[in-house]
């Protein structure tokens, strides 16, 4: 039985078969295959049309959401701007609308000028330039036939592209170990390419590469890797990123490494289908398939034995490769580099020693550290406090969790998300390299993690990834356009605000989750971003950080006091994750009331509860208004996934708001500790008595409540001077109840050694307070209420006879 074929997703279209340079390392003209001599110089319009038709039918047959076409040569610019314009138009005419077309041209840059750039801009063509490094390196091979250097022309081409970054795809550098790797890398990196490709020179066991040392290519690349790593991994280098990605179980990013099946095919200027271009280095005729674009479909090419041989993954490798510890990252190297007369391609790569050394080095240098928490920081947090330094440790670990969740969402939902989600992921990962602060500012918004966790649970709202990407693009000030998700008639940009796109929805107080069953694809609108402004078809054009420009834009407002500021989050559709419903958009009067209460509450915290203030400054980023509480009650809440957010209905007085904030932030801190450390046995399903609850609590609930009540106890302890009668009674009550709960935890038998240590520190704080004098009446009332609550609880939970 034949296995399903692997569809092609990458198409190399040879638009011109000659070149204006005479590089002596060129595989097209200088290596074994000499088929170029019999090809037409320029691809015909008919061949282009048939190519577009073949790709389109392949896309439809295999429901491909994205394909990549590279206009290649020889030197493709020899075809001239008019012909390239026609080719690009033909491809777009057949493919736009049925899939995303990533259209590129790969050039030596000699002929690139404004005329070409205009064509490429109009047709959405990105440009990659071959450049072997600094002038000395580039001149070693990349010369005109008369020996002149091409370096100046290539640099001029790159400068044209740097002035039009939307066209700039990257630089391709063929490695020559005779060159200085530092000079090569620095020269390339200075040109700020979106990506650098280092290519091993094509070679086989029959014609091995120059090798001054046993692993000279590894040594050369390792020197660059160390520079690159020291620079923080920018600009992106595909070879290194591919090794890192595959070492972590991800995809290979290049055909020359990894076990993924090849999905690339070449269409020559005469319309012949060929296998990978690199095979030209093996033997004359090696890439040929005997198939032609006018006669044969791409499915027929995909069934060609030579193509299938490059799609067998591990099974297609020789025994030595299959047993190799780095085979996941190496994949036997480039197929062509395995060739040896007699045994064909059933060999390791001629670069085997280099690949083993390079991959081993990169893996060793990028092995994953894990988060740690200094013991002193853990103890400080366990005592119920923890200042800025301790909360910073927790906040830093949250960054890893958010990045993991975002990548997991993309992996889980990306395939179904199609081109829109692919573009969103490209934008956000690109910004992560170029504007990491902007990405982090958005990801750190508490409800991004809430969204990601929900999306991983039920797959809903995956399209919100585009909204996250656009919010990051706004903060980065870059130019981008994406189809963003509409929820409840509005487009929400996390951390920035919400834009009404459906007037009927203006003024809504709840955001219905209506995009799953009735509208599986979800509604989207195209949002364009440039220089920090956002624009929407229909005339909306606004600066989201300058409120008041557009009546339908509702920014996240901020509360400020004492040099501290938090967002007042009443826009995020994923904020409604608390036990009580989130409030709708607040009126200006209500915002003013929040500001007054916050200013007074923060002043109280800083003056009376100063130990809590530094941690709050670091970790509290958002206050989320809840719907008004039932009469006589105060409500507040913390959601485990919303690190940095405290939700509350605006209480009657600022002192209560201060209490709600410090209490809820205890949950924020402990939730973050539990995110990274095991304090108890999660498999223990018993329920325990909690003095402040009428229902039996699981161990985590008891731990959370007890930890939070340390702050409640402390609040009333320090408030005894301002509110003597009430505060003393509350202090007496909560220190007693908290101390009792701590002993329940300690005796539970469910704590890990680390959890035992944590609870010991909790006990140390409360034990000191037990020695503080309170009136006999307050003590008696605390004892009485504790007894009454316990008796009532026991009666309620005991089996009835």
């Amino acid at each position: 039985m034949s296995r399903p074929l692997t569809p092609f997703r990458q198409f190399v279209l040879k638009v011109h078969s000659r070149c204006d340079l005479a590089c002596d390392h060129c595989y097209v003209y200088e290596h074994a295959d000499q088929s170029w001599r019999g090809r037409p110089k320029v691809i015909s319009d008919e061949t282009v049309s048939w190519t577009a038709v073949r790709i389109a039918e392949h896309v439809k047959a295999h429901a491909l959401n994205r394909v990549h076409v590279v206009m290649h040569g020889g030197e493709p610019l020899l075809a001239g701007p008019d012909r390239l314009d026609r080719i690009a138009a033909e491809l777009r005419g057949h493919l736009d609308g049925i899939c995303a077309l990533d259209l590129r041209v790969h050039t030596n840059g000699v002929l690139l000028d404004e005329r070409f750039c205009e064509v490429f801009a109009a047709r959405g063509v990105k440009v990659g330039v071959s450049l072997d490094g600094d002038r000395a390196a580039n001149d070693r091979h990349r010369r005109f036939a008369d020996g002149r250097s091409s370096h100046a022309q290539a640099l001029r081409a790159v400068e044209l592209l740097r002035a039009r970054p939307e066209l700039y795809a990257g630089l391709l550098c063929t490695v020559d170990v005779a060159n200085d790797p530092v000079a090569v890398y620095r020269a390339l990196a200075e040109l700020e390419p979106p990506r650098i490709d280092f290519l091993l020179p094509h070679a086989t066991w029959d014609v091995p590469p120059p090798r001054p040392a046993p692993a000279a290519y590894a040594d050369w690349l390792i020197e660059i890797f160390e520079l690159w790593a020291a620079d923080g991994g920018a600009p992106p280098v595909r070879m290194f990123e591919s090794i890192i990605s595959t070492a972590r179980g991800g995809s290979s990013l290049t055909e020359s490494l990894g076990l993924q099946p090849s999905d690339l095919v070449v269409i020559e200027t005469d319309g012949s289908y060929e296998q990978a271009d690199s095979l030209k280095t093996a033997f004359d005729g090696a890439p040929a398939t005997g198939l032609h674009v006018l006669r044969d479909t791409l499915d027929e090419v995909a069934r060609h034995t030579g193509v299938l041989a490059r799609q067998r993954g591990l099974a297609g490798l020789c025994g030595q490769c299959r047993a190799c510890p780095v085979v996941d990252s190496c994949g036997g190297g480039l197929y062509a580099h395995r060739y040896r007369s007699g045994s064909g391609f059933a060999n390791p790569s001629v670069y085997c020693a280099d690949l083993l050394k390079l991959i081993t080095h990169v893996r060793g240098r990028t092995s994953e550290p894990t988060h740690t928490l200094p013991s002193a920081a853990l103890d400080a947090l366990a005592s119920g406090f923890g200042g800025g330094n301790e909360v910073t440790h927790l906040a830093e670990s949250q960054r890893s969790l958010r990045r993991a969740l975002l990548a997991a969402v993309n992996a889980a939902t990306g395939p179904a998300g199609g081109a829109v989600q692919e573009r969103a992921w490209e934008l956000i990962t690109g910004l992560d390299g170029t504007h990491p602060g902007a990405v982090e500012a958005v990801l750190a918004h508490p409800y991004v993690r809430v969204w990601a966790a929900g999306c991983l649970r039920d797959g809903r709202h995956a399209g919100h990834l585009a909204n996250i990407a656009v919010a990051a693009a706004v903060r980065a000030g870059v130019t981008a356009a994406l189809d963003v998700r509409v929820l409840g008639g509005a487009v929400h940009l996390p951390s920035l605000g919400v834009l009404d796109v459906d007037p009927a929805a203006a003024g809504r107080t709840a955001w219905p989750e209506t995009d799953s069953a009735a509208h599986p694809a979800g509604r989207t609108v195209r949002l364009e971003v440039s220089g920090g402004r956002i624009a929407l078809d229909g005339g909306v054009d606004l600066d989201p950080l300058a409120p008041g420009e557009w009546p339908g834009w509702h920014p996240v407002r901020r509360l400020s006091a004492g040099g501290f500021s938090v967002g007042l989050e009443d826009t995020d559709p994923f904020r409604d994750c608390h036990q009580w419903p989130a409030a709708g958009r607040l009126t200006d009067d209500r915002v003013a009331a929040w500001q007054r209460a916050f200013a007074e509450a923060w002043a109280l915290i800083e003056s009376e509860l100063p130990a809590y203030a530094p941690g709050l400054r670091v970790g509290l980023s958002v206050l989320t208004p809840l719907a008004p509480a039932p009469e006589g009650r105060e409500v507040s809440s913390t959601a485990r996934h919303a690190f940095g957010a405290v939700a509350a209905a605006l209480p009657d007085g600022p002192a209560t708001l201060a209490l709600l904030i410090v209490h809820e932030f205890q949950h924020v801190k402990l939730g973050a500790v539990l995110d990274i450390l095991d304090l108890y046995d999660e498999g223990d399903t018993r329920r325990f008595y909690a003095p402040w609850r009428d229902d039996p609590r699981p161990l985590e609930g008891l731990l959370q409540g007890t930890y939070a009540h340390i702050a409640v106890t402390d609040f009333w302890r320090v408030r005894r001077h301002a509110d003597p009668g009430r505060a003393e009674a509350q202090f007496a009550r909560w220190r007693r109840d908290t101390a009792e709960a701590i002993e329940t935890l300690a005796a539970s038998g469910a704590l890990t050694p680390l959890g035992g240590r944590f609870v010991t520190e909790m006990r140390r704080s409360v034990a000191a307070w037990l020695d503080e004098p309170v009136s006999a009446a307050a003590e008696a009332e605390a004892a009485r209420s504790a007894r009454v609550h316990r008796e009532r609880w026991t009666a309620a939970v005991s089996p009835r006879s």
Partner: protein
Amino acid sequence: MNASGEKQTDVTSDVRDLRDVPLSLVGRADFDGIVRRILPGSPEVRRVPVAAFNSSI
């Protein structure tokens, strides 16, 4: 060592440090463990999703 001469130690988590890993390179081997940790799928594991507070204060 701290000021009192006591040796400072770290408590080590099994959560991978992904802060400096390019987002594009955060792979399954990176996120699987974290997702399992913070979104446990086992029905035996009950998390307290919301820490809610009311007027019992």
